[in-house]
């Protein structure tokens, strides 16, 4: 599936709920679902510190694709982290760099990505794109 297709899939999953409470319950479920990073990587080195919540992010580059694992200390943040990983992990650097992530707006969670919200998410997206740029540059350097 392309990024766009996964975005549409997520938008559909959320469109089943009109009520904010149901949407947040779904996000919370996604946040509780799994440990998304090896606990050994929950260190300062991998931490993106927001004023409100923290995010840990690790990236690995294999066969032209970037695989992300991440976690957060807040469950709502973690739920959104989960969505971002579902969309961006296992993609090529170019796909990640070009992703506009408009689905967040469509499912009504845009406020959580605002830098002023300071939960680590907007910095996390920046960091994911930066990883993509770095892996892409490295690869082109090798050619």
């Amino acid at each position: 599936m392309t990024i766009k297709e996964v975005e549409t899939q997520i938008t559909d999953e959320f469109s089943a709920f009109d009520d904010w409470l149901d949407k947040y319950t779904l996000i919370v479920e996604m946040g509780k679902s799994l440990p998304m990073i090896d606990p050994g990587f929950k260190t300062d080195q991998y931490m993106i510190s927001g004023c409100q919540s923290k995010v840990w992010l690790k990236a690995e580059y294999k066969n032209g694709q970037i695989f992300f694992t991440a976690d957060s200390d807040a469950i709502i943040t973690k739920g959104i982290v989960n969505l971002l990983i579902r969309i961006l992990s296992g993609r090529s650097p170019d796909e990640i760099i070009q992703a506009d992530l408009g689905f967040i707006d469509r499912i009504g969670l845009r406020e959580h990505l605002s830098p002023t919200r300071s939960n680590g998410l907007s910095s996390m997206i920046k960091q994911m794109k930066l990883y993509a740029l770095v892996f892409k540059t490295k690869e082109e350097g090798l050619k």
Partner: protein
Amino acid sequence: MNFPIDQIRQEFPILDQQIYNQPLVYFDNAASTQKPMQVIEAIKKYYEHDNCNIHRGIHYLSVKATEGYEETRQIVRDFINAANSREIIFTKGTTESLNLIASSYGKRFLNSGDEIITTIMEHHSNFVPWQQFCLEHGTIFRVVTLNDKGELNLEELKKMISEKTKLITLTHVSNVLGTINPVKEIISYAHRYDIPVLIDGAQGVSHMPVDVQDMDCDFYCFSGHKMYAPMGIGVLYGKEKFLEEMPPYQLGGEMIKDVYLDHTTFNELPFKYEAGTPNVEGVMGLRAAIQYLNKLEMRNIVEYEKGLLEYAVNKLNGIEGIRFFGTSKNKASLVSFLIGDIHPYDAGTIIDKMGIAVRTGHHCAMPLMDYLKVPGTVRASFAFYNTVEEIDRLAEAIILIKKIFQTRKT
């Protein structure tokens, strides 16, 4: 007195609105209070009729604006019962007042090896300026800790005092715990050893009568916007003997007496510390806010807010799993809490969706959060326009949060 809550709420236009289709509940008063019509009108009137740069001018408007500004200094003096209006300096807010003292008092009175005592419950604005001054000048920075109610360890503070101590700086009321510190006792003890005491009154003035002469503090700082006045205006009270001795903080217009090619002489108090065009609009708003508080009478405000706090503590205490931070008997009207181990960001997000404004996070007191070993707290801080019905809505929100985050745990 029967507190005229309905009339008061009508005087705060911002309260009459819907957030996410529910009536707004504003419980973020420790961050900033809302403004009554009287304050909003005063600013409007100033710009419609009296706006002009103050001092220096000899024309009608300048004289009128100057009079309004200087009368307000007198009103502030009366409000905190300072000995004279030369001791009242207008600043941008508590942060600027504290930075001014750290810089000017520091330059004049603090040397390498001297000690400053502060507390672990300080807001960053009464912590970082001193910490940085100490790092730069080799002054030693000592920090008093708390007991499990969130009260200062007074014995620890007393033991820290030595002949090297040159200043004690602490908050009147903790912005996180609500603890009202026994400032009068601390000041009287410190003065036995001739140690001046600075009080950060940002969370104090709006909740209780303040008499700086009775308290005998050497400095007292507060912000307009936390006491129903506009943002960008604040006050530094300092005893004349210190303000006279300390060098100016910022240089420029207004604060000079004579300027020559090779040197400058400085203006007298209070103008020495008010460089540049001041926030006259803010001063006019502050004046209206103080007049508003005086009309309500601080003792009535204290009584009403005490009722709100008691109601909130009882109501929220009934919810299983709630953990309060700050349980002193001497407490201003705020509650800081966590619900089980639910992250404050998660709790705050749901509370917001219920139309309730609370603050979550570290509340600009990261050393205190580390000390309490929490990532942050949820803080509901009350003002005299809040009601017990609003507290009921907060309790409902907390019960909902428990349902979302705890019972559905996999």
